[in-house]
């Protein structure tokens, strides 16, 4: 069953066409990874799914609701089912790591404070940030910010989580830890996951589906095992070079 469906999504940003007719179906309860070169519009694509950007043309469906024309309260209702890890983590500078992770629990779920503390401590420990709760984001390294952002996304245990490059900038060991954590959480809670990642070939073993964004379109989408056997030359080239060096001219 499809949880998220994009149909003919077009978006021009700053005079540049970024998405040129994206058709994409994300199955419910599965982990779908989107690959593609830098600047291809992967982050822009994720922002359309959670309604931070509205398409110039086309439709975005989330669980049977067309969200691209929604505003205000109706959009917030849909967003309550989401969490997102931003590419740059997007931690609030004025709050400590603990307060950052607690933020959605306090603001969105309005949990009692004792439960907030328990859940935040647990998540911080899982991402390897136990005892770092009192620090401010400015005092963290890039990788630690990423993990704090991940903790903030996971702590709500929502139905859909969007991960924008969760492991970029981490050392291989930490990247594996994060992948394992995402997979474990995914098994435990069965949320629908959409991940943008460059970690080839690791993503093939952890994803259920893989899609590739190129020139503003989804050029390939297949179950992870089949995706590796593709014969599409553009996809093959991207996989061969490890995904990191394909840049738009």
């Amino acid at each position, binding site marked *: 069953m499809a949880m998220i469906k994009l149909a003919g999504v077009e978006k021009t940003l700053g005079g540049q066409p970024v998405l040129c007719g994206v058709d994409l179906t994300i199955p419910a309860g599965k982990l779908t990874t989107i690959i593609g070169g830098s600047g291809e519009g992967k982050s822009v694509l994720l*922002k359309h799914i*959670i309604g*931070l950007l509205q398409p110039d043309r086309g439709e975005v469906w989330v669980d049977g609701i067309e969200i691209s024309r929604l505003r205000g309260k109706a959009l*917030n209702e849909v*967003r*309550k089912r*989401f*969490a*997102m890890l*931003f*590419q*740059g983590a*997007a*931690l*609030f*500078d004025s709050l400590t790591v603990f307060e950052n992770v607690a*933020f*959605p629990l306090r*603001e*969105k779920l309005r949990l009692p404070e004792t439960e907030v503390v328990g859940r935040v401590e647990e998540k911080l420990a899982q991402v390897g940030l136990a005892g770092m709760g009192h620090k401010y984001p400015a005092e963290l390294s890039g990788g630690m910010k990423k993990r704090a952002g991940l903790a903030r996304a996971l702590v709500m245990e929502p139905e859909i989580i969007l991960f924008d490059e969760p492991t970029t900038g981490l050392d291989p060991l930490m990247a594996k830890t994060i992948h394992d954590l995402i997979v474990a959480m995914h098994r435990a809670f069965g949320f629908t996951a959409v991940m943008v990642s460059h970690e080839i070939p690791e993503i093939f073993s952890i994803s259920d589906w893989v899609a590739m964004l190129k020139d503003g379109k989804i050029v390939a989408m297949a179950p992870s095992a089949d995706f590796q056997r593709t014969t599409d030359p553009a996809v093959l080239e991207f996989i061969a070079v490890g995904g990191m060096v394909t840049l738009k001219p």
Partner: protein
Amino acid sequence: MDERVAVSRVLTAFVERLGRATLFLIREMGRMLIFMLSTFAWLARPPLRPFQILKQLHFIGYKSTFVVVLTAAFTGMVLGLQIYYTLRKFGSEAVLGSVVALSMIRELGPVLAALMVTARAGSAMTAEIGIMRITEQIDALDTMAVNPLQYLIAPKFVAGLIGVPLLVAIFDVVGIYGGYLVGVDLLGANPGSYWSSIESAVEWKDVYGGILKSISFGLIVSWVCCYKGYNTRMSAEGLGTATTEAVVLSSVLILIWDYFLTSVLL
């Protein structure tokens, strides 16, 4: 023939550019107005965030105190010098206090304090919100179904509305003492008449006008500076441009609005 075509082309281009600039200006003004109105609408909705408001009040108010006191002292002192010098020509040094106090309360206190708050707290506000925009913290608020206008902007509006009038009050008092210091202690005007002329000349109407001015200036500072930060463009220069524009626009609006209010209040 060719010449006429060329001239008409230049004229068309000019009119086009003028039209585009006018349209842009009108659209920008509309956006700013909507920004302010929606912030007030969000302010009226629960939850009220007293802690956020206090934090902003501390930032806009308390942290601007030093620079406001410094500016006020020197403004008062230079007024003491200048006005004493002028009044002595007419032998009316006795009204020194009232002239200093009226200039402070009616005009210089609100305007200079607001300009100092713009320079110190306003620019920092634009930069803070602009960085939150660029690093997607504002998007993150949105994804957590927390309205950024309510969480981020509304407390700054309240802090501006409360903080600036309080700073203006401090400015007025320090300025009047600054005038006393120079006029009386240094130049030898009569201390008794300095105070009594203030008592007899300053009316409730003057104070009321000053308060009205400082409240509206407080709104202008937080409104303009928040708007510019909130709409920072996603580029390296974006933040610098936003901060500069915020300070310039806020200062200019303060001066224009000051003239308008003065002409209405008089």
